[in-house]
């Protein structure tokens, strides 16, 4: 694969030109944290910032989205699908969030293809950026230290300054050729600098799951009755934060809204979370998952067991957002390691 390099100034110039033609979003500062937002000046972008409140999945699958518009005036109600295929360049997407998008693809772009997601997703251009972990990151435990694919362009900082660029798609190549005139070809030396960065990144990860990720489905399957769930369930707020900030969660609710004159309306989908009370309540009142421990079991198994078994990769990407946002310190690594320790104890 061809490798290129660009310095900070060249990147800023390239991005300024990209911004002339495209909507560009990137992590920006918000108080002491970062969020993905529209930028008009590349100097506002913090493409390497970890732990944005929400992952960039919101550009492919927005928090609130109108699916249909309908009119109620005629004899037969009529509906029209609403799609948004405006291209958006997402700059600063880290390997964990690239993996997150792929996980959502399995469901929303799998059987019964969701055209609303598809329209946005296909037009969401991924400029991946490498990053340095904070104490919540655990990409090395779930195989997301490095993105092998899923990006149009990928930027890794190198010690001599600037970035090494990899091109991941034909679309990425077109964009690269059109906008990145200041990039130069790179060779074995730059490749070693890239590897060097990744090495330092891997070494900076402090949170680790104490078992290979492939072993986790069995660990979780055998732990359905573990007291670990009761312990964490007792302090869980059932606030849904963990699910809502997750780069692989896609559950949604559907709500209709009608104009006050009753002539027209829309059908929206809004993110939902399986950790919220009533998520599994059916008409008539029966709740299939009525307690916080049961909801936690479901959520954590969706990450390391159910979806992993179904689609062949963990649906936790090690981004650490759920751990950062949980005010009572429930996080994937702690829970996984407690379950693993418990099973090792039982075996011994």
């Amino acid at each position: 694969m061809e490798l290129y390099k660009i310095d900070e100034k060249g990147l800023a110039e390239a991005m300024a030109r990209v911004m002339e033609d495209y909507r560009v979003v990137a992590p920006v500062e918000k108080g002491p944290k970062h969020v993905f937002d529209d930028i008009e000046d590349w100097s506002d972008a913090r493409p390497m910032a970890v732990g944005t409140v929400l992952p960039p999945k919101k550009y492919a699958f927005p928090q609130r989205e109108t699916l249909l518009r309908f009119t109620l005036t005629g004899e037969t109600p009529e509906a029209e699908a609403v799609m948004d295929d405006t291209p958006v360049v997402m700059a600063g997407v880290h390997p964990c969030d690239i993996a997150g998008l792929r996980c959502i693809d399995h469901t929303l772009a799998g059987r019964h293809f969701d055209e609303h997601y598809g329209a946005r997703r296909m037009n969401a251009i991924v400029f991946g950026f490498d990053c340095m972990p904070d104490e919540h990151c655990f990409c090395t435990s779930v195989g997301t230290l490095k993105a092998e694919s899923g990006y149009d362009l990928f930027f890794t900082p190198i010690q001599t300054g600037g970035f090494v660029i990899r091109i991941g798609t034909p679309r990425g190549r077109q964009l690269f050729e059109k906008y990145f005139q200041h990039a130069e070809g790179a060779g074995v030396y730059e490749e070693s600098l890239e590897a060097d960065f990744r090495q330092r990144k891997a070494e900076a990860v402090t949170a680790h799951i104490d078992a290979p990720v492939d072993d986790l489905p069995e660990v979780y399957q055998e732990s359905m009755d573990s007291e670990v769930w009761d312990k964490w369930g007792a302090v869980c707020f059932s606030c849904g934060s963990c699910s809502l900030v997750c780069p692989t969660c896609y559950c949604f609710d559907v709500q209709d809204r009608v104009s006050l004159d009753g002539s027209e309306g829309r059908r929206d989908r809004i993110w939902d979370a399986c950790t919220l009370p009533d998520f599994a309540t059916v008409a008539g009142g029966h709740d299939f998952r009525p307690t916080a421990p049961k909801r936690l079991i479901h959520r954590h198994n969706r990450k390391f067991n159910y979806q992993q078994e179904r689609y062949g990769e963990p649906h936790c990407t090690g981004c650490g957002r759920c751990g950062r946002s949980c005010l009572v310190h429930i996080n994937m690594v702690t829970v996984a390691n407690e379950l693993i320790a418990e099973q090792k104890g039982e075996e011994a």
Partner: protein
Amino acid sequence: MALAADSSIYVPEPVTLLETEQPTELEKVFRVKFDSGRPLGHGPGQFVQVSLFGIGEAPISICSCPGNDEYFEMTVRNVGMLTNKMHQMADGAKFGVRGPFGTTFPMDEMKGKDLVMVAGGIGLPPLRSLILPVMENRDEFGKVFILFGTRTPQEILFADDLKAWNEIPNTTVLQTVDQGDDTWDGNVGVVTTLFPQVSVDPDNTYAAIVGPPIMYKFVVMELAKLGVADERIFMSLERRMKCGVGKCGHCQINQVCVCMDGPVFRYSEARDMTEAI
């Protein structure tokens, strides 16, 4: 990239309500047809998403016989906002339907076998979409037992059907109510109390179960006592659903979506899923 604005899995197709019948205080049977004239083309056990703009959508089982090109039928219990609105509809009303969705009871696999079909309350309508084609092709199946339990005699659905099926040779309809009254001289007790009257060749028997969540475990125990293997027991599960197409996550049990991988499951699969029954 241009996408046709109507190419969405969430756009319902218009249907017209042909007529309704109200067998019980809470349930109404809706007979509808697509305005486009297309047949629903459902299999036994499938469901549709009924869509009322401004209100929302709800999954509703089909209770009519597969293969009917003229119309399809749904039995709707008035328990929520959408079903309440449906109950207020007059003949000729227009609304939306998406579907059919989900898995079916495997009619072909059941051919030549004895059948035990167990329904509790509002579970009879979905099971009816299996019973009707079985009755239409009665000589292709062995002995058939239909077990139906309701809370009270007032909640009995499809009474005429039950009576007619019971008159078909080699077919036995057994009914029970949790609580009897003056009008009731039949069996009183939960649906499992009917099992002593069931006699089938267990190695050659298929079972189908649809009912309230609490019922499954106990019916499965009775079927096990009869000697029916888990692989030949089928059950339709109910869960909260928003989309019907495996997207919204509400109906997920373990790694399956009830709307897409179900609602009809083989018990040998459902058995190993935590939370399934």
